[in-house]
């Protein structure tokens, strides 16, 4: 496998980074980078970290990074996770407490500890903190419950002062969305599976509307909706497909079908075994969480009614 860390890769412009990855030969991982500056979303780091779990440790190579911003990668724990020698001379430029370094979460107990102990270190107010806890918890729990990956979830987050937002990445190298969804819904493509996974009330555990006692099929829809109301990006990548919610100027309009949102999508990406989710949350607007819940309630009920109607039997007139 080969990964090139570019000059810039955030959710808005992540596509070239994804397309440039070479995911063949999973036994080895070669990491190269832009020599001048590396400015990347935490989800990119999560992906590199996740790939490193697939490769044989002795076959992971990371070129000596020259970029001035390499301290960011060190601070986020990338070299530690890759077991690549760290540069002790590097100075951490940003104040502590505004990022969550790369972390592996493999059990429900670890997740509870993470949400309880680590996220408060971001020093956010209660509303903001709850939003971040919500996103991380639901995404990681999805991994633990559906990915079938022994490696668990890789998570990282970063606060960006200039835009006052938190970017979050949660990645796994499990079975991917299509296999999970196909337990119940026969989908032909990874993109179709992603579309269903983002639709409220759809879960890979049952076709019953309302879900099982433990799964409702609402987690990803809630998080996409948070990004939508916040006018931020959300992306999900699994198999060869990627769906990206684009920033929208339309205020407070949610859709049950993700393809009705302002989005981009593609099915020509390198085959990712597992699932990648990146999301940005604006801290300016987390007070809108309450409004968001009202919107979710409306669209959720509407979507469930429509799905229920689809299952209605029609009288047979002969």
């Amino acid at each position, binding site marked *: 496998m080969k990964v090139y860390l570019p000059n810039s890769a955030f959710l808005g412009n992540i596509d070239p980074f994804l397309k440039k990855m070479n995911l063949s030969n999973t036994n080895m991982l070669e990491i190269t980078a832009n020599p001048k500056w590396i400015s990347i979303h935490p989800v990119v780091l999560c992906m590199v970290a996740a790939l490193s779990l697939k490769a044989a440790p002795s076959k992971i190579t990371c070129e000596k990074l020259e970029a001035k911003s390499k301290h960011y990668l060190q601070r986020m724990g990338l070299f530690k996770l890759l077991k690549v020698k760290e540069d002790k001379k590097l100075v951490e430029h940003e104040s502590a407490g505004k990022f969550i370094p790369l972390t592996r979460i493999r059990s*429900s107990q670890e*997740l*509870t500890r993470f*949400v*309880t102990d680590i996220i408060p270190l971001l020093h956010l107010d*209660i509303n903001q903190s*709850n939003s971040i*806890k*919500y996103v991380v*918890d*639901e995404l990681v*729990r999805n991994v633990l419950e559906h990915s079938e990956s022994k490696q668990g979830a890789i998570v990282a987050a970063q606060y960006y002062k200039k835009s006052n937002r938190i970017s979050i990445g949660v990645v796994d190298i499990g079975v991917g969305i299509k296999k999970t969804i196909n337990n119940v819904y026969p989908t032909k493509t990874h993109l179709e599976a992603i579309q269903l996974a983002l639709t409220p*009330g759809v879960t890979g555990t049952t076709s*019953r*509307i*309302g*879900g099982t*006692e*433990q*799964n*409702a099929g*609402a*987690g990803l829809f*809630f998080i996409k909706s948070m990004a939508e109301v916040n006018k931020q990006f959300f992306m999900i990548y699994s198999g060869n497909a990627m769906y990206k919610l684009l920033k929208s100027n339309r205020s407070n309009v949610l859709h049950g079908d993700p393809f009705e949102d302002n989005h981009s999508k593609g099915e020509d990406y390198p085959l990712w075994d597992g699932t990648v989710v990146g999301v940005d949350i604006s801290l300016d607007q987390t007070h809108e*969480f*309450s409004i968001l*819940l*009202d919107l*979710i*309630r409306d669209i*959720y*009920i509407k979507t*469930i*009614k429509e799905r*229920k109607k689809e299952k209605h039997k029609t009288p047979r007139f002969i």
Partner: protein
Amino acid sequence: MMEIKILNKTGSFAENKDAARDIRLKIMPVLKKENVILDFNGVEGATQSFIHALISDIIRVYGPDILDKIYFKNCNEMIKKIISIVADYMQES
């Protein structure tokens, strides 16, 4: 009337679905005989997954009228709304 303090089971952010399941299994037999209070005092937030794991099966098994026997106490606005969403979609499904 049985009263359960959610904070003691979950901490200030209610997210652990195993804890939700344990509470649900504890109160389901009780609801056949008496009302139950779920006290969210001190709980600042909850995920939809937690609330779903807590009440969805109760509504499914006993029917929507069971909501007349469960009192959700000291819920903040966020938790009230999430409980309402789950109660709504379970009654629609």
